[in-house]
């Protein structure tokens, strides 16, 4: 059930009306928890009637692959609840560490099994073959459960926070289960921290106090436009180019790569916008995940703006755990590189993702070294994980010529990295890089060059949004004008939706 599908709107209308009609906070959370598990199950059970008929007839073999994945989520929640209490009740550090290790081993074990088992096996087999030891290592047929990378990181953040004594263990199983399974952020984030979300579960949400209806509606619409109208529309051109890059000209390579940058941003940030808006309409605030990353002036700034919930997670739980910058310069650079390599691997079990992470890691090291040598004059304020969307609705400063050059250079580097992210294998990535960077190994075919005008138009609209031009308009409009404008805008947007949706790109991670 995708956020852009008609059935999601039916589901959400039901959830929304029942949630706000319940008076007790516990009843609401319980209802939302049940709905969240149903939402998650929808990805795996196929046709519900058929599924239950197989269950009642004990025809287990006929059940769709992965029908039991929702139980992994329930198991993970139970384990984290027990570990949290164990951590709090443990008297000495060794026991606390043991509890933490249990949590990390199980969470990472689940992640490794589903996501990396075949990758490690295939890599080991290739390595053994390379040194002359040919063995027969059989890969397993493993299906990746949707959202496993996201909810595993989320539940790990909870146990690490309890271990670090940043918060107390959660006594209410309902609250913890609700935090992990809350459906808007369950499948593709944002990765919400326990300290951001759990306090919100303690009090009954009040419609007039806790819900910024206008903000949530606009944010949902923005996300919908990004995914349904932009990402889906540019996807055919991107697919056309990346399918046979050798057939295309260098200009087409530029179009293909630039539009992939547009596609992945609109797809992922669109999903996040809809997730955050959905949660807001239910009275809960999630973490900001994107803040105009393509206007970043350097790669460090980019990572403060792109997938913020993951980058801050990696910073707080991996980079700092590795020692952060509390050592020599080389030690810090090693930590940066390791963090980004693992961040790349988090995205997918393939060497292209490792290289993607490695390139970003190298760029972070280079930027840090640059700052050390030439001074850190333009250090940007950090975007912290628990900032709300309302806080980033403040107009961004104008870029200026220097800023435009810096942003363009950063965007170019990010696009080069996207080549590795999108290309199926290293060979293809190398070929596309030659086309994109060196204008070599080109073919005769060409994508429609008018697409560059479309790119320019999208960039202009994005810039207007960066300067919060639209925000000022819809925030100031009287209620009835806003309502009429919203209705008319929905009618116009529906013109652009595709016949069939492709799943969100980040679902595969």
């Amino acid at each position, binding site marked *: 059930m995708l956020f852009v599908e*008609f059935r999601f709107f039916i589901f959400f209308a039901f959830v929304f009306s029942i949630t706000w009609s319940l008076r007790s906070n516990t009843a609401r959370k319980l209802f939302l928890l049940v709905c969240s598990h149903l939402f998650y199950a929808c990805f795996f059970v196929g046709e519900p009637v058929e599924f239950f008929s197989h269950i009642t007839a004990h025809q287990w073999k006929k059940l769709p692959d992965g029908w039991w994945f929702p139980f992994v989520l329930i198991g993970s929640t139970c384990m984290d609840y027990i570990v949290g209490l164990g951590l709090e009740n443990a008297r000495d550090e060794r026991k606390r560490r043991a509890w933490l290790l249990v949590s990390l081993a199980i969470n990472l074990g689940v992640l490794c099994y589903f996501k990396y088992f075949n990758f490690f096996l295939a890599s080991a087999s290739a390595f053994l073959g390379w040194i002359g030891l040919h063995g027969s290592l059989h890969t397993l047929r493993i299906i990746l459960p949707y959202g496993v990378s996201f909810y595993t990181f989320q539940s790990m953040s909870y146990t690490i926070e309890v271990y670090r004594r940043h918060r107390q263990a959660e006594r209410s199983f309902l609250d913890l289960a609700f935090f992990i399974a809350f459906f808007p952020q369950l499948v593709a984030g944002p990765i919400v921290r326990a300290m951001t979300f759990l306090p919100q579960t303690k009090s009954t949400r009040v419609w*007039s106090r806790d819900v910024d*209806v206008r903000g949530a509606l606009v944010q949902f619409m923005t996300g919908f436009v990004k995914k349904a109208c932009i990402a889906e529309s540019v996807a055919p051109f991107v697919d056309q180019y990346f399918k046979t890059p050798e057939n295309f000209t260098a200009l087409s390579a530029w179009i293909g790569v630039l539009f992939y940058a547009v596609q992945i941003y609109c797809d992922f940030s669109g999903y996040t916008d809809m997730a955050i808006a959905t949660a807001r309409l239910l009275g809960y605030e999630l973490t900001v995940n994107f803040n105009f990353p393509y206007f970043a002036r350097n790669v460090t700034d980019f990572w403060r703006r792109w997938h913020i919930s993951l980058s801050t997670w990696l910073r707080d739980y991996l980079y700092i755990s590795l020692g952060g910058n509390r050592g020599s310069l080389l030690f810090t650079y090693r930590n940066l590189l390791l963090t980004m390599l693992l961040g790349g691997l988090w995205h997918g079990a393939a060497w292209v993702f490792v290289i993607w992470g490695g390139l970003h890691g190298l760029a972070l090291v280079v930027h840090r070294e640059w700052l050390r040598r030439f001074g850190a004059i333009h250090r940007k304020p950090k975007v912290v994980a628990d900032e709300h969307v309302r806080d980033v609705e403040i107009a961004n400063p104008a870029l200026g010529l220097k800023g435009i050059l810096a942003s363009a250079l950063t965007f170019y580097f990010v696009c080069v990295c996207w080549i590795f992210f999108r290309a199926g294998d290293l060979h293809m990535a190398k070929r596309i890089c030659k086309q994109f960077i060196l204008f070599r190994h080109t073919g005769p075919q060409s994508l429609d060059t008018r697409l560059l005008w479309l790119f320019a138009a999208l960039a202009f609209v994005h810039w207007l949004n960066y300067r919060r031009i639209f925000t000022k308009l819809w925030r100031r409009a009287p*209620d*009835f004008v*806003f*309502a*009429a*404008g*919203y*209705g*008319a805008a*929905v*009618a*116009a947007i*529906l*013109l*652009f*939706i*595709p*016949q069939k949706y492709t799943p969100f790109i980040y679902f595969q991670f």
Partner: protein
Amino acid sequence: MSRIRVLLNCIVALAAFVATCAAIRRAVPMEVEEVTPKLAFFSARKDQFDTVFIGSSRVYHGVSPKIFDETTRAANRATHSFNLAVNGMMPPESVMMAWRVVQMRPKNLRRIFFEISDPRTVSMTKATKRDTYWHDLNALIFAARKFRHDFKSDRGAAFAELSTHMQLFARNRANLGRSTEIQEQWNGTATTKNSPKMLGPDMDGFLPEPHPMAEKDRVRLVNALDKMRTGDVPKREVNDVNHDALTRLGDGLARRGIAIVFFITPTTTRDYNAKIDAPVGAPVLAFDDPQEFPDFYRTDHRFDYDHLNPRGAEEFSRLLAQRAVEVLK
């Protein structure tokens, strides 16, 4: 914000949504291949014609207005007809087509020859642009009546069918995913504009299909004829929903001074016995009896098991005209 204000805002948003959708539909009407060019061609010359034929491919490839007019002229009942049939057009789409023609207010239109066939089932409806196109309010009413009718026998299927029709209606009314089509219309690159071939060599909407019959069609035709000869065809009960829609159409046209003549082509498929759906008292010209019209069922008169070739079409058009002259006297 008070609840009343919230409700008022919702109403304002809904009204703006509906108004914008309607404005878009009015500014850029939906165009579909085959149907739109025929309607556009007819619309531009609507006052020239006094007779139109509406139906499926069996009419499109089987009724020649040129021969029909020659025959009526010879019988001193001169007509000027146009073939508005389109491949796969059955009720409720064909009913909508008839209403569209009437809405154009053609000054000289006196009669509509309307092919009776089974209503389009949901299994044939694949949510294509064409399916979306004909899902107007009348089609939804038709679907609702069909739901009420089918609900007693198979609830699950009835719900599934109604849901499909409602989705298509919503898609039609809300202009879902029409951006590419609108862009093509504005650029003048829409395929619907560039298909004069489908109007036929005489530009009267009749498209002859001269290619010879394939072996598999020959076998199918022989099997179908065997079934019809032995009476091994399930006798149908009157389809209330179809019957009702056709009655309303007949009444509506009669009020506007337009006569409707129902007819059944020499078919071998599901429409056998379709005449029982015809409104009571309305003229029905049925040609679907192989015993009575053996020539139409000869392999040299057909290009496949269900469609007439140019030779068959010529004879069928002539006979249809002769019968029409008798009926309309």
